[in-house]
């Protein structure tokens, strides 16, 4: 890994650079913040270790400059200085530093802190790979547009809303939300095992075809279960498995593949179920036009307690303005015309009554053969 050392003192710079080289880093040095920023712009550095007080541009300002720009990957910043009290630590972290090291430090401490940096940077790689894997599945079905991008945003919003409820406070923490955002795009990963003739069929599925389509939940669930068994400590894998397996379960037990009901269905699966349906309803597919938000909202409300967990429907209603906003933003990125909605101040219950609930809205309705 390439590291950039920013130090105006040549002794400290050598000391740091030599230590990092011994730890296996490929090190470049800069003598002030301005020079460092130019080097960071090359995009070659994922770790920056900077002194605080320097001519031209100080370490905290370098942090701010780095954080104010968008980079293709995260840059881990560690500030190094004499310990001048907690105020400076707070100031450095507020400027965007990830860690703070007081001089004189021991290389063992530096090495341990760099391991933390590597773990954090590795997490980013993991996240990117997981999403790439999900996108690969989606790439077979180009009709779904930015389904995964919207889905994970919807899931996060629903989870954030539920986390504010006393009932879910112990179940939904920051990690749950982060993992849900990370793993919800894998919900349809089992579709890799569904033949193109069924997955991409523009018309209604026959019952046999629908039975095959339903298998994507078990294919995905089984695949991820095998990986989970190999890495039982990885919570994100078990959540991904639960989502892939249960996102078509229904609250009243009429879903598939297991016919689970109520809170037996993992919370992540219940949240994903609603987000998945909402997105399927509000986007155009080869076999159907898209619904307005009000229509989709009515479908979801009608499914409260049968298809969907009533709590999650309530969370959806509380966050619907945000969900519309996200949908619009991502549609804009694709050049899709916006939905005709007036949600923020709409008479929502009235609007909801205007539509009836239709089951299984995600796929073309099966027909008898």
């Amino acid at each position: 890994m390439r590291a950039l050392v920013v130090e105006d003192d040549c002794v400290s710079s050598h000391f740091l650079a030599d230590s990092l080289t011994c730890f296996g880093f490929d090190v470049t040095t800069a003598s002030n913040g301005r020079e460092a920023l130019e080097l960071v712009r090359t995009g070659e550095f994922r770790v920056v270790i900077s002194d605080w007080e320097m001519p031209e541009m100080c370490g905290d300002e370098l942090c701010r400059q780095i954080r104010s720009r968008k980079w293709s990957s995260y840059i881990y910043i560690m500030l190094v200085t004499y310990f001048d009290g907690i105020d400076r630590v707070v100031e450095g972290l507020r400027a965007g530093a990830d860690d703070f090291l007081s001089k004189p430090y021991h290389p063992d401490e530096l090495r341990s802190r760099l391991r933390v940096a590597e773990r954090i940077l590795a997490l980013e790689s993991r996240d990117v790979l997981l999403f790439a894997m999900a996108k690969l599945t989606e790439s077979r079905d180009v009709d779904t547009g930015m389904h995964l991008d919207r889905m994970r945003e919807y899931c996060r919003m629903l989870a954030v809303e539920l986390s504010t409820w006393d009932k879910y406070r112990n179940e939904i923490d920051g990690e749950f939300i982060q993992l849900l955002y990370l793993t919800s795009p894998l919900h349809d990963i089992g579709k890799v095992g569904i033949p193109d003739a069924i997955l991409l069929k523009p018309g209604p599925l026959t019952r046999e075809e629908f039975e095959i389509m339903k298998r994507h939940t078990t294919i995905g669930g089984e695949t991820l279960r095998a990986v989970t068994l190999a890495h039982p400590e990885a919570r994100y894998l078990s959540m991904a498995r639960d989502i892939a397996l249960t996102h078509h379960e229904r609250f009243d037990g009429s879903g598939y593949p297991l016919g689970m009901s109520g809170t037996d269905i993992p919370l992540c699966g219940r949240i994903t179920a609603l987000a998945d349906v909402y997105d399927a309803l509000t986007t155009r597919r080869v076999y159907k036009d898209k619904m307005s938000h009000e229509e989709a909202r009515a479908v979801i409300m009608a499914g409260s307690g049968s298809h969907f967990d009533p709590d999650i429907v309530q969370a959806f209603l509380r966050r619907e303005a945000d969900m519309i906003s996200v949908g619009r933003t991502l549609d804009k990125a694709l050049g899709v015309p916006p939905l005709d909605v007036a949600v923020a101040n709409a008479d929502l219950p009235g609007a909801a009554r205007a539509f009836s609930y239709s089951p299984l809205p995600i796929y073309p309705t099966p027909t008898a053969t």
Partner: protein
Amino acid sequence: MSQTKAERLSSVVDYDQLVSRCLNKLDFAERMLTLFQSHCGEELAVLERALAEDNLESVRLIAHRLGGAAANAAAFGLQSCAGHLRLAASSGSREQTEKSLVELQQEWRRFNAAIAEESHPVELT
């Protein structure tokens, strides 16, 4: 290394700390000490010029930098004197700054004398 020499060096540098901080690599520690000795002499000359120009902000910055270098070289006496000089310059008192610089110069002479008498300063066993 004789006990007398070790005592003489240990009055200006914490060798154990230096070698430990250089990952127990004696060549690394020797390189650091040599670099520091050369660098510190240059920094002192710059410090004297800055004070002659009454530029206390510059004195503060150089003292801060020197303190960091001394800390890395485990030269605890110089580190302490550089810290005093930095605080004096920060306070804006020229008189106190001059006094602190004199202390730093004295410590520098003591450091040089100890190093000069030790032909292999970091060849520790």
